[in-house]
């Protein structure tokens, strides 16, 4: 396991979370360091998405602590997490399909005129600027999100996360619905965010993408922390082997039962 003398910007200590009889997280530990891209990898059902939902306050842990920027939260709310600069792009994207691009970009932080009325014009203009700056092409930003392609929707969710100005950005499978060209643009965007000093936590099944962008890799399996190391000290083949070995161990355990 790699060690770091710096203080982590995000840390989870002995976190547990169960959904009925299913133990999604069992003594999960996780650290992310400022300005780094930390990739969380693991097989399906390893607890990656549960981990980030606890980090964003969407789920309450049954036990354990969440530390963000040196503050300890035993029960974090979405608002508290956002106030600490944590922003996430969830796997389900969390978009309101009936609203247009601006309605989604500014959901929860609407621009107002006269203090009470929504400033639709200004929100639309700012959305246009944002999408242009991020080189995201959506031909008609006034159409409801439900009429957009999977890639456009994913790009919109990423644009929203970037626009919040948070310094800890979490991306859960951010390019799963994107084509090669769009994925390459998003990878460039991640590089830019990293250069700007943002901390990025990335969940991805694409190991080559993980090695391409991350500084540190955290392996989780069956709701538990397995290992964490610097990306440069490993290779996709080694990582793949580690995940498969863990999966085989689990199969053996199940067979023994």
């Amino acid at each position, binding site marked *: 396991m790699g060690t770091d003398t710096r203080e982590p910007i995000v840390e989870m200590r002995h976190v547990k979370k169960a959904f009925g009889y299913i133990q999604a997280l069992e003594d999960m530990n996780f650290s992310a360091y400022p300005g780094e891209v930390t990739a969380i990898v693991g097989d399906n059902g390893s607890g990656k998405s549960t981990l980030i939902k606890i980090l964003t306050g969407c789920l309450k842990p049954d036990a354990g602590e969440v530390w963000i920027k040196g503050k300890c939260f035993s029960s974090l709310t979405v608002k508290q997490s956002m106030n600490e600069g944590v922003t996430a792009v969830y796997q389900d994207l969390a978009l309101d399909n*009936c609203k247009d691009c601006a309605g989604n970009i500014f*959901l929860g932080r609407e621009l107002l005129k006269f203090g009470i009325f*929504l400033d639709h014009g200004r929100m639309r203009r700012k959305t246009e600027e944002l999408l242009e700056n991020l080189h995201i092409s959506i031909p008609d930003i006034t159409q409801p999100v439900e009429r957009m392609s999977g890639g456009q929707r994913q790009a919109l969710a990423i644009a929203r996360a970037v626009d919040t100005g948070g310094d800890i950005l979490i991306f859960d499978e951010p390019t799963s619905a994107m084509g090669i060209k769009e994925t390459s643009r998003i990878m460039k965007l991640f590089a830019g965010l990293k250069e700007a000093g943002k901390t990025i936590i990335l969940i991805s099944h694409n190991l080559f993408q993980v090695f391409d962008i991350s500084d540190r890799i955290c392996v989780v399996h069956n709701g538990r922390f397995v290992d964490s190391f610097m990306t440069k000290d490993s290779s996709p083949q080694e990582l793949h082997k580690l995940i498969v070995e863990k999966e085989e161990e689990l199969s053996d355990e199940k067979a023994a039962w």
Partner: protein
Amino acid sequence: MKKQLGKYSQQIFLFAAMVIVCILLTIRSEYFFTWKNIRNILEAVSYRLILAIGMTFVIASGVMDLSAGSIVSLCGVIMALALHGGMPVPAAVAAGVLLGIALGAVNGLLIHYTGINFFILTLAVSGMLRGISLMITDGKPITKFGQDFIYLGIGRIGEIQLSVLFAACFVLVSVPLMFHMKWGGYVLSLGGNREALVKSGIRAGFYRVTVHALLGAAAAVVAVIITARLNSAEPNAGMNMELDAITAVVMGGTSIKGGKASIAGTALAVLILGVIRNGLTLMSVSSDYQQWITGFLLLVSVLISEIKVYKIKALIK
């Protein structure tokens, strides 16, 4: 231009349908297109429009409230008892409206925190509230109020009845509330994708409770109008009124699944239903047929709404 027409296609269709119905009724009855009859129609639809506007918000938030008619009844009964007990008119009306808001808020709380299906929950609440109205009144109407109160139901400013002005105020306030203010935006998101709202750090529960409280307030205003107009608080008042409101809301283009709403569409649909009802009465058609037509129009509206969703899904594929 084409896009705008597409966006408002249902409202344009409704308007065209209303014009056609009006032309046909004018041909069939010389009394139909007279100022007196138009005034009758407006007065008859005014309180239905108020309830339908409240229901538009609730349906836009992704649920329905089948207890609205029973709230009308209980609020009327309580107001009547307050008036008979010697309470001044403004205080009795305020008590009725506050009761409506409280009953609506309880519905919202139950839907949000118990997770019980809204259909079953509000149906159960409807039965309970109607039962309370019948128990309090022993099944008999409470009648005879002072002129001050009756004025709220039949009073006029110029040629226009107060109830029509109340309905117009509801429509005028609803448009900015729904489409130009945060509150309405969050109510729409509650129907569009509740998860998106929660993950944006917005308390969905607050909007669920307040949107039902708004419908409760609308039901209470309807109770004031009906009780004052009839000079009687009936325990069976408001029976099936929620069905008419739901029909108008869905006909008007508000998505039955939530997330999309049209206040103008609801207003047009209430008006067209009122015109049809009036026309059938003028042609001496039995009220049983009127009920049948309302049910049939609800079915057609839901089918149109489903076809729209299917088309969008096909477009994405």
